[in-house]
Every structure is written in C-alpha cells, then in structure tokens.
C-alpha cells in the first residue's frame, strides 16, 4: 500500500518534472521563467520538496524491508526458470537503488550545483533571472554526464515499466480485463518518459540546443 501510494506520487512528480524540463525546447524565455516561478513559490516549494523527500524515504524504507523479507521467503532452487515475470519486475531493487544514486548526483549537479565549476560563471539572463537554460546546456555538453543521465533514465523507465502499472494491482484498482491493458499502458508511459528525458541531453550533444550566453 505505502509502496504503491508513494510510487504513484513519484510517478506524478516524474511526469510533472519532465513537462517542466521539456520547456528547454521552447527557448530560454520559457524555462527560465518557469524556474523563476518555482523559486517564487518560496515556502511552498520547500513544502513540495519535503513532501517528495518523505515519499522517497517511505518508498525506500518499505521496499528495502520488502526485498529482505521476500528474499528470505523464497526457496533456493538450483535451477529456476521465470515463466512470465518480466526482467523489470525481477530487478526492481537494483533499478531503484541506482536511481537513488542518480537522484543524489542530480541534486548535487543542478540544484546545489557543486559538481560543475562552470555553473558559477553563468551570468543572469536579460531579465535578471538565473539562466537555467544555459546551465542545462552546459551541463549536458559533458558526454560522461549525459551518458549517466541517459543510463539513469533507462533504469527509471525499467523501474516504471513494472511500477507504473503494478500499483493498480497493489491497490486493487483493476480486474481481469483491465490488468493486461494497464500493463501495456504502464510500459508505454515508462518508455515515453525515457524518450522525453533523454531527448534533452541528446539534443544538447547534437548541438540542436545551444547555450544562450558564452562563458
């Protein structure tokens, strides 16, 4: 229950965050003002961050406990052949933990901005807002950074290709006919999320999106 509810909250966040980020394709004006709006929320932004943090902590706490309990309960076969279980469903803890490592890196990279010294050189944009647009472009110009983002998004999609439909079952919100359809929709949503997020570093590396200012 708690895993499912917190998972749903995180999925909604991931979709919202994606829509926010895709504004980079609309130009610096859009994304910089979006970022400014977020910052203008002030206390409310912190409330959202706290809410997400609690969701993540609960999700991890219960899933780790779940994984330990389940590992203990299963039989130790010499030979085992999965019949139906997808690769994604069998590697939820692995994908989840790498996503966790990614979240730490991502926050250090773009929120606290301690990993890339060039970000300190960025000037405010013409309307005196932080130039999030150029920051993202410079951030993703580093191939290794971009590669790690793509890898993390791949694992996120893997995690969600199971999770984004699995929660309907956990919450009992389905029936025999609906379950396979939800599973299909969940997988499509997960891979759309992958394509959406990955499009940003890929576009930057291909030179399709250029910084709005020189350093």
């Amino acid at each position, binding site marked *: 229950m708690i895993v499912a509810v917190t998972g749903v909250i995180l999925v909604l966040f991931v979709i919202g965050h994606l829509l926010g980020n895709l504004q980079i394709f609309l130009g610096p004006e859009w994304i910089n003002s979006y970022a400014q709006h977020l910052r203008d929320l002030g206390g409310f932004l912190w409330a959202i961050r706290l809410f997400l943090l609690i969701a993540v902590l609960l999700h991890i706490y219960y899933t780790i406990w779940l994984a330990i*309990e*389940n590992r203990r*309960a*299963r*039989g130790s076969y010499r030979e085992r052949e999965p019949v139906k279980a997808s690769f994604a469903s*069998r590697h939820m803890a692995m994908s989840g933990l790498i996503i966790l490592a990614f979240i730490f890196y991502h926050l250090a990279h773009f929120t606290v901005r301690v990993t890339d010294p060039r970000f300190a050189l960025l000037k405010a944009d013409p309307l005196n807002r932080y130039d999030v647009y150029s920051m993202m472009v410079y951030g993703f110009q580093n191939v290794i950074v971009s590669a790690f983002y793509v890898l993390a998004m791949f694992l996120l999609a893997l995690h969600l290709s199971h999770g984004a439909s699995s929660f*309907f*079952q956990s919450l*009992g919100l389905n*029936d025999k006919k609906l379950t396979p359809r939800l599973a299909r929709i969940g997988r499509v949503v997960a891979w759309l999320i992958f394509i959406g997020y990955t499009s940003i570093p890929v576009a930057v590396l291909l030179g399709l999106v250029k910084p709005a200012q020189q350093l």
Partner: protein
Amino acid sequence: MNFRLRVWRQKSSDEKGRLVDYDAPDISPNTSFLEMLDIVNERLIERGEEPIAFDSDCREGICGTCSLTINGEAHGPSHPGAACQLYMRRFTDGETITVEPFRARPFHFIKDLVVNRGALDRIVQAGGFISARAGSAPEANSIPVPKHDADRAMEAAACIGCGACAAACPNGSAMLFTSAKVSHLAFLPQGHPERVTRALRMVSAMDAEGFGNCTNTYECEAVCPAEISASFIAKLNREFARASFAKKLGD
C-alpha cells in the same frame, strides 16, 4: 525415449542435499512424468538403492498433492497442468531434466522431493470456511446469486491447493492461493457474515507462516494448474483494504 535426470536427493532437513544424476532409458512417450519416476524407482529398488521420494495422489490434476519443480518451473514446462498431467512426449529425446521439490521457506523439507505444505492448511484454518449450521441441504433457489458472482466464485474455487504459486514466486508469496480462498467465499452470500474477519485473519496467518509479499510478477498465474487469475490478488487487496477500514470504523 531416453532421458538423463538430475534429481534432488536429501535424506532429511538435517542433511545436505544435492542433485544426483540418473539415466532413464526406454521410456514410452506416453508415460506420465510421475509414471516415469515410478519406473526409475523400480529400477533403483532392483539395484538395491533407495527410491526417490515424491508426493502424488489422484494423478489426474485434482488433488494438488504432486509438487515437482521440473527444469526450474513449478509443475514443469506444460502450463496449465499439474506435474501428474505432464507427459514425457513434452520433452525431447535425450534431454536432461532437472527435478527439485517445491521450495518456499514455509514449505518445510521432508525428504527428496517431498515438502510439508501444512502452512497452506493453516491459512485455510484461519478463515477459509463459513460457520453455518450443517444439516440437510437448503432449497437451491432460496439464496439467489448473480451469474457473474457465481462464475467468479467457481473460478476461484478451482484452486487445488498445490502451492505451485508460492513455489514459483520469486518472493515465496502465497497470495494467489490465499486470494483464491478469500475470493471464493467473498463472492457468495454465504461468505458474507465473516467477510471482514476472514480477510484479516487469512492474511495475517499467511504472514505468520513466513510467506513473502506479492510484487506483481505474475509467476504464480503462469504456473497455476487451475488457471487461477492474478486478478484475484487484486480482489484480495480490495477485500483486505475494505476489512481494515471496516475494522477501524468498528461495528
């Protein structure tokens, strides 16, 4: 046909077990898997060796006693169907076939391919019944049951209690079994008086036995010989949520 078997041999839970190789030559393709084991056992006895212990009873897929994991799949490669309904023609000539018992922590090991599945009985004892006065059967039409509910109840009642679901589950979870037992009674008016306590007690009995938690991999549904659908697990999740809520509200 000729086969090479790798069979789990273990005298008792105190001793270490291992896979032992046996040759099974001259087997008719129409031999059932259990008959094939009988033939191997007869040959072992002739040679003065200890036969392979395995469980079976009806040998027609209705009792839920046979419990073999064959080539890593509960009840073997032919789904849906119990191990007793599996025929050797399903394999290729010369194939190596691995045979292990049903494994899950709550299934206590007895010998070779035999495990104690009493944990499932204790889940049923915790609430898989109705408390009704026994006696002569009531008039069949006195309690109307909608067709949909009757169909779903019959579907759930098809569970033969074999435990393949828990044996196949990567989490050792018996949710499919328990969901079938809970749903079967939840769909019928006769099951309604004890609906709340049944869901709560059977789930806590399941946890107390040490079964794991469902993460919706649907391995259970894939191996179930009675084709119990994993949508009953969603039904159990609903029943459990409903019962927890009803209990919080009090009477």
